């Protein structure tokens, strides 16, 4: 469904991605792991169109989306739950969720989805009229995930969704992701919690200093010696 070929991205003169090639099949859950600064977030940014790529090609359902704007990419069905929460700080929880459904116009469905999200994260329901900037870190993370789900994409990209969440919520988030995948949505996930990510994914890529160095099923990677020592704590 999504193919990336030889993707190169730069920040100023620094080459953060040096020709990344990967692909994701329809309905798959793919994990992208790698050390700090490897370029995982950069890859997601390039796919969702908020970062221009210097070279390479990204196709989605056979269409070239390399040069598309973020808006076009979202309307084609790719949503991105960014690193570092990025909630709208001066807007309330409710308004943030509204923004998630910005491109949708099915009012009734939107309302139902919103309630579903409040069902997943009761904490957010308690805080629905609070401005997002004053939420705790974990609450903001829940909001960011909820907001991304609101856009009802066909490909959902999560950048470290478990960041800053309490263990019970982490569990819940992983099960939400699992159920998203089960409902037919394709998922691309970047996770530092590599063990859990590798356990649940269909396929995984390992990114190191801007290049893919290893790929395979989650199980393959868990068993890999290098992965074990560098990412799973030995």
């Amino acid at each position, binding site marked *: 469904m999504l193919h990336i070929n030889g993707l190169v991205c730069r*920040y*100023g003169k*620094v080459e953060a991605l040096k020709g990344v090639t990967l692909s994701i099949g329809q309905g798959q859950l793919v994990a992208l*792991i790698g*050390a*700090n*600064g*490897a370029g995982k*977030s950069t890859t997601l940014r390039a796919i969702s169109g908020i970062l221009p790529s210097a070279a390479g090609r990204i196709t989605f359902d056979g269409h070239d989306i390399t040069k598309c704007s973020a808006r076009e990419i979202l309307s084609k069905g790719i949503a991105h739950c960014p*690193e*570092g929460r990025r909630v709208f700080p001066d807007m309330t929880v409710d308004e943030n969720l509204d923004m998630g459904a910005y491109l949708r116009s099915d009012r009734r469905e939107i309302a139902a989805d919103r309630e579903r999200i409040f069902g997943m994260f009761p*904490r957010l329901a308690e*805080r629905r009229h*609070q401005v997002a900037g*004053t*939420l*705790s*870190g*974990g*609450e903001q*993370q*829940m909001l960011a995930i909820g907001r991304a789900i609101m856009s009802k994409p066909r490909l959902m990209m999560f950048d*470290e969704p478990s*960041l*800053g*969440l*309490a*263990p*019970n*919520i*982490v*569990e*819940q988030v992983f099960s939400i992701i699992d159920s998203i995948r089960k409902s037919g949505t394709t998922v691309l996930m970047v996770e*530092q*919690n*590599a*063990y859990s990510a590798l356990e649940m994914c269909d396929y995984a890529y390992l990114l190191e200093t801007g290049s893919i160095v290893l790929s395979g099923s989650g199980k393959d990677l868990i068993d890999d010696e290098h992965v074990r*020592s*560098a*990412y*799973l*704590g*030995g």
Partner: protein
Amino acid sequence: MSTMPSSVPQPVLSVEHIAVHFGGLIAITDMSFVVNQGEIVSLIGPNGAGKTTAFNVITGFLRPTKGEVRYKNTSLSNLKPHEVTSLGLARTFQRTSVFQSVTVFENVMIGLHRRSRSTLLDTLLALPREGRAEAELRNLAHELLEIVGIARRADELAGSLSYGDQRLLGVALALATDPSMLLLDEPVSGMNATETARFMELLNKLHGRGMSILLVEHDVPMVMGVSDRIVVLNYGRIIAEGPPAAIRGNPEVIRAYLGEGASRHAAH
């Protein structure tokens, strides 16, 4: 700095009956706990339990509605954040926090602010003392970058570091203030297991030098691994307190925080 942990616990930080209200919202109700000299205490609890708020109260960023915090028998009630820092209490922030548009090295130089003894007059008249003080600071800065392990990126702009490296720089900044106690707010979030293990080594090293540490973290294995004691907060209230082993088995903590998979997490 290197006082050995004595057998009789010496409370350095004591939080006494703190309450924090934001308008109608009660973030913390009547919280009390102590951290003893040389101890690593973890403050854990579900999202929104009030951990960061507690940090803000202790470090003077937020005035509590009620209660008092004492550090080494000094009340922190009316101190401004920079005065709290001067007492030897340093913190890191939950959200990544560095001086974005200056280099990593300059970041640490800024962090060393309190260590310089040069006065305004030295500066204006360019007295030799000024030059010596500056040279000393530069050495210290290099040392600190070595300690946290980002010395190779010293000349890069802090804003261009990856998330994890920025968090390490945050720790270096806190260490630069020459603290006797560190308050770390989710230091390893965004680090993988291997990086976390490395960070735990750093913590143990500091611990070995007698540094007291108050840690907020959601990485349960790490918390269990480094803490001497754990305080659990839920909805602004302390629901449990004790050594890691006791907390791990506490049913209330499991329900409110650890979740069913706690045992699975602990396995790794």
